[in-house]
Every structure is written in C-alpha cells, then in structure tokens.
C-alpha cells in the first residue's frame, strides 16, 4: 500500500538482532564521519559500506522505492541549485580553476566545482541507506528500552517509540484526508502555484490535527489507566542485553570514524581532499 513508509519489519538478520541503542549510536557515529570529511574516497568507501548493510538487513527494494525517489529528486534539485547560486564554490575551496565547459557569464563548469558537488551529493547519499536501515530494522519498543538503559528518561523514551509506532497510522489518515480534499477540488499537484499549494496544505493539516487529538486522548487515557508514570523507573518486556554483536558493531563504526579523521589529519591535511594541487 502507499503507506509503507517507515514500517518496522520483522526479519532475523544480524542488523535486526542489534539493540536499538547500538543502531542509533552507530548511525550517529557514521553520520558524523560522513559530515566531517570532504574526501570523496572516504565517502565512497562509506557509501559502499552502507549499501552493504542495507543488503544484509534484507530490506525489500519496493519498501524503500518511494523514499529513494524522493531523496534522489531532492538531491538532484539541490545539485542544480548549488551550481546556480555558487558556481565558483569549488574554485574557492580548492584554489585552482580548470574550466571544462564555458557556459555564459559567471556560469562555467570547472573540475573543482564538479568534484565539490559530487562529493556533497555522495555525502548525503551515503547516509540515507543508514537512516533507512535504522527505521526499518528497529523495533520501537526495544529501542525505547535501550534508550532508557542509556539513562534517557523512560517517559521520553516511550514518547519516541510511540511516535515511531503511530507514524504509519498518521500517514494513513493523511492519505485519506488528502484524497477526500482533492475530491473537493484542492489541487496538490505541481499545476498549482507555490503560494496556493502552501495555502492548500493547511486544508489538510487542520483535519489531520483535529482527528489526531482524539486519538491522543484515548491513548493517553489507556496509558494512565494501566499505571504509566507511577514510579520513577519501569521494566521492559522487550529488552535485550547488549552482547558481543553490539560491541562489534560499535567498534566497527568507531574504527571508520577514526580512519576518517586519520585520513583528514595525516593525508589530506584538512577536511578536503585536493587532487588539484600536487
């Protein structure tokens, strides 16, 4: 169905077996590594790594197709816009200018700009699969319990898990509301003007908010009536001790981060890899 965005699916793989906390930590470590470096060699390495993880966790292509398309379109638009707004960014960073193609005015394609933009594109692209792996392989309840074990207040942890859990519901309600409003004539397609689309979006949000409020009331009643918040601590039905696999995953992620920093400090002498100055 259309609302297959972000649904936890149960399969038994190495990635699924990891604790939610481990996955979050690894995700953060790897993301910092990617955000830190502008060395395309390192980034490509991480890209291969993250697609391998995606493969291992046996996520079906059709489940992520929609999200991949969105991300790809977003990145492509970003790519074009970056060029239009600052075509000389690459030249500024690398300090040389090798023009490949003369266009017009200040718009000339340089190798520097191409390298810079490709690097940036790859940066985002290598993180996306990791985010998907996290969303698709993490049991929200188990994630809450592992957050709690990492000394996050259990009420906060539970709120996070509820959000993850009710996301598909809200998405379904949103689809239905959007369809019924389109039937009344609300134009959400690219045909409408941007300002109009903005206004039209509010026609969807108001019903979504009012209908969700009721839902929130019944969930919070159900929680109160079953004693949520009684004590300062709580135990978890679905919790898992950290084991060897978890420590291995964290170690591998840390290793990648350290390697990235090592490459920057000792090889690139900075965050950028500069092939233009020999």
């Amino acid at each position: 169905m259309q609302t297959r965005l972000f649904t936890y699916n149960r399969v038994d793989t190495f990635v699924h077996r990891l604790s939610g906390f481990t996955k979050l930590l690894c995700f953060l470590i790897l993301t910092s590594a990617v955000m830190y470096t502008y060395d395309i060699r390192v980034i490509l390495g991480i890209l291969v790594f993250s697609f391998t993880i995606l493969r291992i966790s046996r996520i079906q292509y059709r489940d992520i197709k929609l999200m991949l398309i969105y991300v790809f379109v977003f990145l492509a638009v970003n790519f074009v816009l970056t060029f239009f707004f600052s075509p000389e960014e690459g030249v500024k960073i690398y300090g040389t200018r090798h023009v490949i193609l003369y266009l017009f005015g200040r718009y000339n394609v340089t190798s520097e700009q191409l390298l810079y933009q490709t690097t940036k594109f790859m940066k985002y692209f290598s993180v996306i699969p990791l985010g998907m792996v996290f969303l698709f392989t993490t049991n929200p309840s188990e994630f809450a319990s592992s957050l709690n074990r990492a000394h996050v207040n259990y009420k906060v942890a539970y709120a996070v898990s509820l959000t993850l859990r009710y996301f598909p519901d809200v998405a379904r309600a949103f689809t239905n509301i959007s369809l019924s409003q389109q039937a009344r004539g609300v134009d959400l397609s690219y045909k409408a003007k941007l300002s109009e689309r903005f206004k039209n979006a509010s026609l969807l949000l108001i019903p979504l908010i009012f209908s969700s409020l009721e839902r929130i009331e019944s969930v919070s009643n159900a929680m109160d009536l079953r004693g949520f918040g009684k004590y300062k601590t709580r135990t978890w039905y679905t919790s898992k001790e950290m084991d060897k696999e978890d420590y291995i995953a964290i170690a591998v992620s840390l290793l990648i981060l350290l390697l990235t920093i090592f490459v920057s400090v000792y090889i690139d002498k900075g965050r950028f890899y500069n092939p233009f100055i020999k």
Partner: protein
Amino acid sequence: MEKVRAFQDPIIDFENFSFKYYIQSEPTLKNINLKIYEGEKVLIVGPSGSGKTTIGHTLNGLIPFYYKGEIEGSLKIRGVETRNLSIFELSKIVGTVLQDADAQFLGLTVGEDIAFSLENDNVPQDIMKRRVRKVAEMVGVEEFLAQSPFELSGGQKQRTTVAGVLVDDVPILLFDEPLANLDPLTGKKAIEIIDEIHSNTKKTVIIIEHRIEDVLHRSVDRVVVINDGRIVGEFSPHELVSVHVLNEIGLREPLYISALKYADVEVTVDKSPGYIETLKLSERDVQHLKDWKELVSKNIERVPIKKDDVPLLKVENVNFSYDPGRPVLKNINFEVNKGEIIALVGKNGAGKSTLAKVLCGFVNVDSGNIYINGENINNRTIKERAEYIGFVMQDPNQMISKQIVYDEVSLGLHLRKLGKEEIEERVNEIAAVCGIKEFLKWPIQALSYGQKKRVTIASILVLKPSIVILDEPTAGQDFKHYSEIMNFLSYLNSLGMTFILITHDMHLMLEYAHRTIVLSSGEIIANDVPSKILTNREVIEKANLKETSLFELAERIGENPTEFVQCFIDYERNLRGKNANEIIHL
C-alpha cells in the same frame, strides 16, 4: 442473591454523588445513589450525554485525575473513598477496557501489550513473561504472544485488551462501550468473552453500553438506566423490556420486543422477555404474531427493487490490486438505480473501502469500467469524479478544514472558481435542504457530532454529485443520533438522491436500505433485499453479520424467516412514512 446481599457490604457505593466538569455549567451526574455487590454483572445503559461514560470515569479514576471537576457526595470502592485514592491505586482495583480496541493497544506485540501494566510496576522480566503467559492462556491468546495485536481478528483483539487488564488481578472489570465500532459478529463474541470471564473468575463486571439487545445476548444481573445525569431506575432484564423506560429515554428496545408490540402481544415480566431464549409465548401470542404478519403482507404494498434501463451507476468487471498478484477487488459487477439506498457490507478487509476509493477515482482500476448515466468515467480526475460521485468520510473531523460552516460548505465551489453569487445561491439552497441554514455563520467546532456530520454531507452535496457514498455514517451513535442521521438521509433520498452506505449496522440495513451488496474477499457474494440477506446463514457468516432476533422469533412461531423479516421492514417503513413530516424538521 438478595439474601446474600443483606450480609455483604457493597464493593461500589455511590451516595448522593454529584459531579460537575469545570468546563460545564451544569452537573453531569446528579445525586447518584447506586450500590453494586461483589460478583455482580451490571449493565449501565443510557443515551449519549446521559452521564454513563462519566460514571465509568469516576470508577476508574480518570475523574478527577484526568478530567477535572467538582465532586459532591461520596463514592466508596471496597469501603475507601475514591477521592483519597490515586488513579494508580484505583487501577489495581478497577480494570478498565476502553472502547475501540485498536486505540488502546500500547504494545507492539500481544505479549508486550498484556505486560504494559507490569512494566510500570517494575516487575522483573522473567516474572513478567511468566505472568503474561498465564493470563494469555486464561483468555486464549497464548498462540499470538509474538504477533502484532493489529493482525488479530476482532474477537482476539478483545481478548488481548481484557488480558491486559486481568494481568493485574483486579476485582472489578469495567467495560466502557465494548461494542462501539465492532461488527455484529465480533460484538456477539465480545459479549460471550465478557460472560466467560465473569463466570470463570467471579469478578464484579460493569458494562456501559447503549446497544441493549446485543449485551443481552448473555445474561446480566441488573440493568441500571441513566438519563440526564440521574438514575432512572434499576431493573432486571425482564422488567427492562416490559416497562416503557427505553422508548422514553430514546434507546432502542430489542427487535423481537418491537415485533411483539406491533402484533399487540402484551410484554409482561411473567413471559420472561429479557432474552429471546427465555421468552415464553402462549398459543394466543403466537396466533397474534401470525395474524399480524398476515395482515401486514396483505395490506402493505411492497416496493419492488428498481430496475432502470440505464442505471445511474454501472460497475462492470472491475478488478483492482495494490500489489500485483494480490487482488483486492475481483470482477466486480453491480448497478445502482436513481433513488436507491444501497448498504455495502462485509468484514474488515473485504474490500468495501477499496471499492469506494475505486468509484471516487482515488485509485485507478486495473481493468473494467465505471459508468454514470451510461457515460464512462474511468478517465476522469479525482476532482471531476467528485461531481459524479461524492464521498463522505466516517469521521467528520477528518473532513472539516475551515472554521466557519459557510466556508466549509462553499469550499468545493470556491476551488472550482465559481462566481460569488452562484456560490451563495448553491450554498443557501443546500443549507436549507440539510437544515443547517441557521448555523451558516457558526464556528464548526461549536456544533454537535450530528450537526458536523450534516455539514460534511452538505459540503459534498453542494457539488451536486449523482450519487453519494457514506463510510459508516452511524458508527458509534446511539439510537437518537442514529435516527437523526438516518432520517436526514432518508429525507434527502425522498428528494431523489441516491446513496451507497458502507456499514456494519444491521438495523440500518433493515430499516433504510433498499438493497444490500455483500463483499467477501474482494468478491460480491450477494446482492439482494435486506430481508433475504439477513436470513441467509451462509452470507451472514461470510460478512461477519449475525442473525437478528426476528429470525429466531419467526422460527419459534413456525413462520418463514425471510417473509417475517420483510413484513417487519414493511410495517416499520409504513409507520415511519406516516411520521415523515415530523422527521424533516428536527
């Protein structure tokens, strides 16, 4: 029972108890005096807004913990004044099963959901798992512990919610409208589950409901009737249906009781009429019923099913699937004629909503054709389709996007860029038809549920569709509001409008539908008058419906059930036809 009580203290004791929500000017509960004893099974009935839900909230502590207000008088549970207890302490005495199982699942799996309350009590994981298993075995869901509660059948969902409460070993179980949003068969099972738990555990059971006939599928000790914040009386089920109290406060009496009354059979306590199984009919009573049936079938002209040359809507060989290889609709063929009210029924997941989406153009057919007045509308956009087929969602809150009634009703016309005068004219015309003319300048959130429903219907009708599909128009409504909504639709129908109603409500089918279409696993398995559908055991089972008590009554007196049910329908419609003038101006 009476003898035992004399020596026993009540487990629940309301004494001159009143409650007023801070946000309201009038008290919702007025001077309640009620004693409930250990091991009793008590049904609390009353129309919407009578205060029955508020009574439930005072018992489980949501009042005053969550809903604030002023309390007067005393409410003791097991001898302790409840205002001295926290909601957590109360939740160990009164276990509450809320309406709508889907909205109260907190765990991702059945096991986790049952464990929720233990988790909050810091019970260690190994003990927790053992207790969850034990309770799951008690209610019969032990095979599903690792599954998501949303994957279960309706009955299993009910069992899971009950297990989540029983895991605390509470002495009192409170069921707050357990039948709301359930299809008839699941509702019947829910009542059986409650009864089974009551007789196995000897716990005190309190059921708050307005669907009396459905609850009385199994026995209860006492029925407390509440209206306008006061207790009207306490009755045995036999007394309840013999006295006139239900009609007076706007609740529906069981169908077989209505039939008895129509046939001039006196309903008295000595006939034990509370349950159809215990009902005693004399030979004279049986004769009365037979005579009545004879009279009705002779004197009331039956309206035959309409058959136009060019039907208003024609659906031809429609197939649809979300994923290739998993068809949701298989070779759907049917016609709807102008001026018909069609009930579209079937289990959850049978394809009803998908069929509605296909008709409205929200999704495109894989193959097949849809015609309106002979014109193929397959290639029309969603927006264009809305001028042929309108769709009213179940929850009015999911449709309302403006603050003022006028803006909401005119939204579709504005978006179609019509002239100001034409818009005003059309809105005024529809508002008059829908009886919301006085409200046009009102803020929508100030309206009642029924009025909001009218606004959403008006905002669709203003586009002048040939046919309107309504998703569960009466779900969760009590008899009064149900009648209000349905009489409104029936009035619009008398003006020539055509409706398809997606529903679980068997009363709606009996009372208002000209024809019923039954979907099962994406196929139409029946398309006939309601009296035939509701007396066909095979179809009933496949659509998660149940037999009506009229069916059983007909069999008892040796009449053909289909004909008997049809007579009942004809008689009631005739009766309503006579009252039509009152109905239009509500």
